[in-house]
């Protein structure tokens, strides 16, 4: 099987409101930077392009076509789109390269969540007969999950506050982060509840922005002469759409996906976990069996800024950045989709040979 390398990653700042900027205007600067990083001119220089976005965020059908227009798709390019986080666009691109249909791919994701009422918009992706007509929002579902964990003594509110405080402190070193600060767990615990048992700080912010990645075969990465990280394993598993049928205090699908991706074959220096709520980081780190020797969410994670449809790709990009910078030799990136960690993707990244 062909080894696949990540050779470039860029993201915009996570901002609470991009104002009059539209999705295309969010993507273009990110694409310009990644073309420069990889040393290519435009999308014509890769074999395949795949994007992730959500029509429900834009409020229009086939809205992702605007994103393709941003690329300059003439002469025609080979292109695909997932109505999912761009981490799944990466997954499709990995398959495309493994099948021998491409040697390189550009992957990008974008979302402008600020114009709508995101938790209510996301309620419409739930079961259309039993849940969507009730307009039960994603924060409320996560709050019920958190209470289950608290009731069973699996976590404490202080554990959750510690996750938030570490995110805010780690984000001080992340120039793209939306929420950062030198705060303590006591500061967080002093806040009133927002959607009990969650405090506002337990929830990721609503953010606008985009991110992009270029992957290719290891041979091509060497030919381009770029530092790279190898995607040594990637898998994704989805659980039932009925939250009542799942053990919400665990993430079985994350654990299985990590096993299938070969996470256990070596030590994990760094992990970037897509946990939109503080208690979910605890579920994920336990499901993955991460210990003190793993640096968890050094970027601050999505509690510091949550680019819908791009934050999953960003988790993989953050691990790539640390491997290429020499801060880590091996890392794991996790992405989620759906309510209460329903669908999970795990990618394992290893240091490439020195170019």
């Amino acid at each position, binding site marked *: 099987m062909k080894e696949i390398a990540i050779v470039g990653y860029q993201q915009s700042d996570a901002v609470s409101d991009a104002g009059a900027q539209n999705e295309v205007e969010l993507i273009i600067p990110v694409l310009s930077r990644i073309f420069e990083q990889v040393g290519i001119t435009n999308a014509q220089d890769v074999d395949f392009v795949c994007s992730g976005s959500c029509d429900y965020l834009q409020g229009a059908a086939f809205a992702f076509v605007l994103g393709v227009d941003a690329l300059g798709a003439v002469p025609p390019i080979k292109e695909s789109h997932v109505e999912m986080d761009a981490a799944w666009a990466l997954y499709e691109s990995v398959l495309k390269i493994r099948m021998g249909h491409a040697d390189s791919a550009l992957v990008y994701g974008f979302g402008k969540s600020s114009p709508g009422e995101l938790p*209510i*918009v996301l309620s419409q992706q739930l079961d259309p007969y*039993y849940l969507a*007509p009730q307009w039960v*929002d994603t924060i409320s579902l996560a709050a019920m999950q958190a209470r289950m964990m608290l009731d069973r003594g699996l976590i404490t509110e202080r554990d959750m506050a510690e996750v938030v405080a570490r995110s805010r402190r780690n984000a001080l070193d992340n120039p793209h982060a939306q929420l950062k600060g030198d705060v303590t767990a006591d500061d967080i615990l002093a806040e009133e509840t*927002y*959607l009990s048992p969650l405090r506002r700080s337990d929830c990721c912010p609503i953010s606008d922005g985009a991110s992009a990645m270029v992957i290719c075969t290891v041979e091509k990465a060497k030919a381009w002469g770029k530092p790279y990280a190898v995607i040594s394993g990637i898998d994704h598993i989805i659980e039932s759409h009925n*939250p*009542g049928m799942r053990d919400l205090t665990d993430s079985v699908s994350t654990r299985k996906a990590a096993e299938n991706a070969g996470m256990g074959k070596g030590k994990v220096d760094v992990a970037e976990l897509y946990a939109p709520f503080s208690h979910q980081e605890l579920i994920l780190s336990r499901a993955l069996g991460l210990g003190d020797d793993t640096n968890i969410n050094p970027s601050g994670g999505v509690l510091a800024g949550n680019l819908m449809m791009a934050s999953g790709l960003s988790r993989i990009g953050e691990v790539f950045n640390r491997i290429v910078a020499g801060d880590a030799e091996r890392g794991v990136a996790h992405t989620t989709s759906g309510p209460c960690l329903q669908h999970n993707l795990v990618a394992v990244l290893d240091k490439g040979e020195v170019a």
Partner: protein
Amino acid sequence: MSQPEILNQAFELGFTYTRSTGPVVGRFLTELKKRNIVGIKASDGRVIVPPMEYDPDTAEELSEFVEVGQEGEIISFAWVKHPREAHPSERPFAWAMIKLDGADVPMVHWVASDSEELVSTGARVKATWSDDTKGYITDIACFELV
């Protein structure tokens, strides 16, 4: 100079089409109209409410319906201090996972309560019906503390 007329169009977010709900979901919704609540037996014998068409573990097609109680127990809940416009209540309320008597799996619905302090995990609740039942999940107007 006269003000130009501003073009505008109402936009409703949601499913603007109808579809048949099939023998499982349809049966459940039809029973709601009659103010009954039914579940379905999973491959391992657990009673799932609302009923699912396929067993999530074995993918087996499910068909054995079971009538369940209209009272149950709160398995978990979230207290909504600031209801959103789309929410079913204008006053603070609780979303809850409720395991009905005779069911093995909790369902998501909402609980009316005058205060957060009155709601707790393990509390007993009872379904309250809409005046006009139509075959929707919202025929259960809410659950009330017993």
